[in-house]
C-alpha cells in the first residue's frame, strides 16, 4: 500500500471571537484505494481538518503532502490547479451550478483541466453519470433534480478528472436512507475498484462502519 496523503503536525487556531486551538498536532496518512471515515462529535474539528486536507484552507501550521508533492506554502492558484487534477469533492448540500444541466456540471472541471477534447469529455461525463446511474437525467437542469439525484451528479463531477483522492463533507448528511445507501455503495466501489482514496467526514454510524478505517476525533485530536 502506498501513501497518497500525509499530514504532519497540523495545528489550527480560530481567532474569532477569541483565540482557540481547533486542531492539535494532527498527523496521519491515507493510502491509495482506502475508504476513510472521519468521525467525532460536532465541534471536534473534523470538518476543519477536512478543509485543510482539501487545500482550500491554507491558514494552518504543519505540513501537508499529497501524491508526494508538498502543498503547504503554495499559492491559491497553484492549489486550485492541483485540486482540479487530483481532488474531487462531494459536499453535504449538493452544490451543483443551478443554471447548468447535470452533464455540464460534470463536464466543467474537465473542461477546466483541458486534458481531453470537449467531445471526449462529454463521453467521459456520460460514463461517470452512468456509474452513479444518472445518465437518463444528463440533460436536465440541475436545479430540477431531487436531492439524492443532485448528490449523485455531484459524485460524478468529483470523479470526472479521475482524482487521486475524493473528499466528502457529510456526503449523506442530507439524504434519506435509501439514497444514503446508494451513495455509500458508489463510494465503496470507487475505492475498491478504481483504487481511489476516499476521505469522508460523517455523522452516520452505518456509513462509518462500512468504511475501511475510521478516524475518530475529539477536541482537535485524533483519538483512534
Amino acid at each position, binding site marked *: 500500500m502506498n501513501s497518497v496523503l500525509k499530514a504532519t503536525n497540523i495545528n489550527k487556531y480560530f481567532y474569532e471571537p477569541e483565540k482557540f486551538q481547533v486542531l492539535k498536532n494532527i498527523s496521519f496518512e491515507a493510502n491509495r484505494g482506502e475508504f476513510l471515515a472521519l468521525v467525532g462529535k460536532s465541534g471536534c474539528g473534523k470538518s476543519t481538518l477536512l478543509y485543510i486536507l482539501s487545500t*482550500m484552507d491554507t491558514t494552518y501550521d504543519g505540513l501537508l503532502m499529497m501524491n508526494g508533492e508538498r502543498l503547504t506554502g503554495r499559492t491559491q492558484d497553484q492549489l*486550485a490547479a492541483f*485540486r482540479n487534477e487530483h481532488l474531487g469533492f462531494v459536499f453535504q448540500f449538493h452544490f451543483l451550478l443551478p443554471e447548468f444541466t447535470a452533464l455540464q456540471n460534470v463536464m466543467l472541471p474537465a473542461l477546466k483541466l483541458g486534458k481531453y477534447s470537449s467531445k471526449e469529455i462529454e463521453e467521459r461525463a456520460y460514463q461517470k453519470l452512468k456509474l452513479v446511474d444518472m445518465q437518463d437525467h444528463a440533460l436536465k437542469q440541475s436545479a430540477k433534480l431531487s436531492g439524492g439525484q443532485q448528490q449523485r451528479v455531484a459524485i460524478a463531477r468529483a470523479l470526472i478528472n479521475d482524482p487521486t483522492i475524493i473528499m466528502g463533507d457529510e456526503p449523506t448528511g442530507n439524504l434519506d436512507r435509501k439514497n444514503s445507501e446508494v451513495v455509500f455503495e458508489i463510494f465503496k466501489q470507487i475505492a475498491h475498484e478504481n483504487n481511489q482514496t476516499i476521505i469522508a467526514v460523517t455523522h452516520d454510524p452505518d456509513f462509518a462502519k462500512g468504511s475501511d478505517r475510521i478516524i475518530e476525533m475529539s477536541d482537535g485530536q485524533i483519538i483512534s
Partner: protein
Amino acid sequence: MNLKISFQIAKTHLLTKKRQTLIAMLGVTFGIAMFIVMISVIKGVNKFLEDSALDSSPHIRIYKEITSNHPSIIDEVNPSNFNIIYHQLPKNELINIKNGLQIAANIEKEPAILGVSPQISSQVFFNKGPVPFSGQIAGVDVLKENKLYDLKKRIKSGSLESLLSTPNGILMGKVLARNLNVKVGDKITVTTPTGNLKLVKIVGIFGFGIQTVDGVKCYANMSMVQEILQKDKSFVTDIHIKMKDSQAALTYAKVLTNQYGYKTQDWAEANSAFLAGDKIRNGMVIMVSITLLVVAGFGIYNIMNMNVINKMKDIAILKATGFAGNDIVSIFLIQSIIIGILGALLGIIIGFCLSYLLSSMPFDAGDFLDIKTFPILFEPKYYGLGMIFGITTTILAGYMPARKASKIDPVAILRG
C-alpha cells in the same frame, strides 16, 4: 486560464437572468445613444456655423488700422514731465492702403492663393423716404469678388453681370432689401459719411444666410464708390484674400503683415466668437457624456455586485473544483463586457436613428441662419468613440465586482 469555459459560464449566467442583463444593457444603451445624438447635433452646428462664417469672410483681410491713440508731441518731447493736454484729436489720416492694387496683384501671383479682391469699403446710409438705414458698401471688381465668395450662387434675384453694365448699380443683401422694401430695378439714395449723395439702382439681391452680412452689406463697382467718396482711382481700403488651404492663412497673414506693414486679420481672429462658441459646446458634450456614462457605469457596478453576491455559492464550487482567481475574474468581467458591447451597439443604432429623425426635423432660425432642418453631422468617428466609451465604462465598472468575486473564500461558504 481558459477563456472558452469562462465565456460559456458567463453566457449561461447572462441568459438565465435575461431581465437583469437587459436592464444593465439599457443603462449603457441610453448613455451611448444620448452621447451620439448630442455629439452629432453639436458637431453639426459647429460645422455649419464654421462653414457659413468661413464662406462669407476672407481668409485674410488686409486693412489700415486707424486709431486716435497717439502720444502727443509734448509727451514725446518731455516724457517725464507732468503734461496736460485737453481734447486731443486724431490726426487726419487716410484710411487707404497705399499701392493697394499693386499689392493685390503681387499677392495674386503666389501659388497658394485662390483669389484676391481689393476693395473700397465705407459706412453709408440708404435713404428711402425720410428714414436712413445704415449699411456698408463695398466697391469691388465683382468678378474677383465672385471668385472669393461664389457670389453668383448667392444671388437671389437680378444678376451679377448686370452690375458690370450698370455703372451706378448695386447688389444688396436680402435682409437689408426687405427692410428698405426695395427690389431689383428700384432706385435708392446713398449718403456717405462725408455727406455726398448718389442715386443708385438695385441690380441684384444676394443672401449669404448670415444676418450680419445680409442685413448690412451692398456691393457696387469700385469706380462708383471711389467717386462718391471723392477718392482717386487707386484708392482701396481693404484687400480680401482666399487661400487654397484655410489653415495656411493663419501663418501667411503674419508674413503679409511683415511684408507690407499693414494690419492683417485672419479668419480665426475675425470669427473668434464663433470659434469660442465651438469650444464651449464641445466642452459641454464631453461633460454631459461623462456624466451619462458614469451613471451607466454605476448601474452596471450595482447589478454586477448583486450578481456576485447571488452567485457566491457557485463561485465557491468553481474554486473548489479547481478554478483559479483569474478564471473567476474573467467569468464576471466577460459578462460586463458582453453587456457593454451589446449595450453600446444598441446605443449606436438608437443614437443614429434619433440623429436621423432630428436631421429631418424642420428648424427655423429666421434670418439669423439660413437653415431649414437641424444641422446634424453623421461622422463614423463618433460612433466608434461611443463604442469605445461604452465598453471602457463597463470594463471599469465590472472589474471591481469581478475582483471581489475572485477573493471569495470558498471554505467560509461551503461550510455554511
